[in-house]
């Protein structure tokens, strides 16, 4: 009898604990976003709209891709998000479609003009701006908080960080310390040491020809690059076409010795997005450095194909 009583008490206690747990799950989530605003969500959101490709990738990487109900036009990874309603870009978001999706939370970049409008309509908005490697870690943490998956987020970060370290550690000695010019656009705009790509290059032990004091993406005098004479040039396929023909560029070691790493658009996507595929970006750059150390780097065999709409 007493035994049964204890059993019942235990069961009751377990039920209470479960209830308590559920309550904890439903407890409001409060976090400070990158604008400095404190946002309170009543519970873990079930319907999410993401207006930044890297945030979309982060949510999916944390295993909650099914909760995403709408994305911006640049989000194209993983493939499942391509079927979701496209809500335009950050400057021309189709507010009506977005509101009709009834999201519990909208995650987007800080620069978005759309934030005030959405908040005016009573939507919960979390603005996050991943620009550097440390931003990626912070944004991952915030996203874990929103999704109620703090531990998963921490594990994911450790995995990403580990992969990058591995990419760096497995580089042969000859591929270390190469001087690199990473071209973002034909302006010429280069990726400085302070940029996301620059940070990865530093982790891989490469020497970026653009010093940190010039900022993340300086518009350079073309003469500067000729004078710096990089051993390797990394450039997107869109801008690679005329590069060797630019006045004076034939003399650059990277051009002369064919150490030109040309990214096809799907690779460019990975390289420009500070998100969970950062380790893939590091692996791509490591591949380039390894090939450049071994001999002339082959150009991509596929013709340039990037229909309008992607962010490359």
């Amino acid at each position, binding site marked *: 009898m007493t035994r049964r009583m204890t059993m019942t008490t235990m069961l009751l206690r377990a039920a209470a604990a479960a209830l308590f747990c559920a309550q904890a799950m439903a407890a409001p989530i409060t976090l400070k976003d990158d604008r400095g605003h404190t946002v309170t969500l009543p519970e873990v959101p079930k319907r999410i709209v993401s207006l930044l490709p890297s945030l979309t990738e982060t949510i999916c990487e944390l295993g909650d891709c099914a909760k995403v109900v709408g994305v911006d036009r*640049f989000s194209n990874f993983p493939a499942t998000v391509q079927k979701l309603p496209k809500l335009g*870009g950050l400057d*021309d978001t189709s507010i009506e479609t977005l509101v009709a999706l009834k999201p519990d939370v909208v995650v987007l970049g800080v620069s978005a003009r759309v934030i005030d409008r959405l908040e005016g309509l009573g939507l919960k908005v979390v603005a996050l701006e991943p620009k550097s490697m440390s931003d990626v870690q912070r944004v991952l943490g915030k996203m874990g908080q929103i999704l109620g998956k703090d531990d998963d987020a921490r594990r994911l970060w450790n995995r990403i960080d580990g992969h990058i370290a591995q990419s760096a550690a497995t580089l042969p000695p000859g591929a270390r310390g190469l001087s690199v010019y990473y071209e*973002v*656009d*034909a*302006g*010429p*705009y280069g990726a400085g040491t302070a940029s996301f790509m620059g940070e990865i290059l530093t982790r891989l032990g490469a020497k970026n020809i653009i010093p940190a004091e*010039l900022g993340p993406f*300086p*518009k*350079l*005098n*073309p*003469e*500067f690059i*000729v*004078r710096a*004479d990089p051993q390797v040039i990394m450039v997107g396929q*869109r801008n690679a*076409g*005329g590069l060797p023909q*630019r*006045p*004076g560029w034939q*003399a650059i070691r990277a051009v002369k010795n064919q150490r030109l790493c040309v990214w096809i*658009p799907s690779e460019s996507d990975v390289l420009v997005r500070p998100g969970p595929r950062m380790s893939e970006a590091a692996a791509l750059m490591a591949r380039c450095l390894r090939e450049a150390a071994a001999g002339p780097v082959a150009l991509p065999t596929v*013709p*340039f*194909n*990037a*229909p*309008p*709409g*992607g*962010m*490359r």
Partner: protein
Amino acid sequence: MRPSALLSARTAAQLTALLALGAALLALGLAIGSMGWSPWTDGGETMRLILWDIRAPRSIGAWLAGALLALAGAIAQGLFRNPLADPYLLGCSAGASLGVAALLFVMGISPAAAALALRVGMTGAAFVGAIGAVLLTLVLARGVTQSLRLLLAGVVVGVVLGSGSALLTLMNPDILRAMQAFMLGSTGYVGWSAVQVMVVAMALCLLVALGCSRTLDALTLGEDTARSLGQRLTLIRLLLIATLSLATGAAVAQCGLIAFVGLVAPHLVRSWGPTTHGALLLLSALTGGALLLAADIASRWVIAPQELPVGIITALLGGSYLLWLMHRRKAHFGGGSGGAGGGGAR
């Protein structure tokens, strides 16, 4: 109407002075690079290459582009008897940017389009766009007989084509940075082939423009008077519009949309005293060349090794100068001299 005015002593002195200024700026241009002041004395293979393949064509190209734009501006102001006329008033700039936007847009849609785009190139697309826009303006204005119709058609073409390129940029934000660079003008990639193209365009345009300068002089007295003086207005107008488009197209294709040089240079020349159009055209070209080359030098010097877009510097220089000129000579723009403001170009 003094036929010898082209060679008057004052004009000759001004010509010499401007040529000397151009030469001095060219020398300075050779000494300014990505490290700021770095003259050619420190030798070495790289330095020789930088001097010969980068700084020399870039400096000469900037001078030529400025000269072409200023020549086009002087022609436009004379032809339309309007002090606000500039090389872009017939839609050249909007056409050129639409050409470039369309080129960047089709790249990547299919391999065939990309191959075609690579063959045409940015300069080709800009040139075709500029000339196409002028032709469109001529069609919309139904010929060249009416100045006002031409100007209005030019405005319409400019606005419509401009929004076209804006739409293409919005649809494919990948091209945003490249478009911005084009709109602000850049002399960074001017090589010897670009210089050759501009030299040929310059020679052609100067020949035609100087040949037609008497008609521009006659036009300052009004269209009817010019016609009664026996000028074949329609033919000459067509010739001059072709010249102004060629000059603008050639400059814009190589250096992007550079603001204000074409507008300011003729005003600068006029502020030195009355001239005939023959002298005005020549002097404007030399002044425009010096202006743009100076702006180019500043653009690579101010924040070296970074670059300011050269168009921003020309706009700053030109804008402040025009403002100063406007307040100094109220009669020039205040309408005191009567007519459409062509009073300066006598």
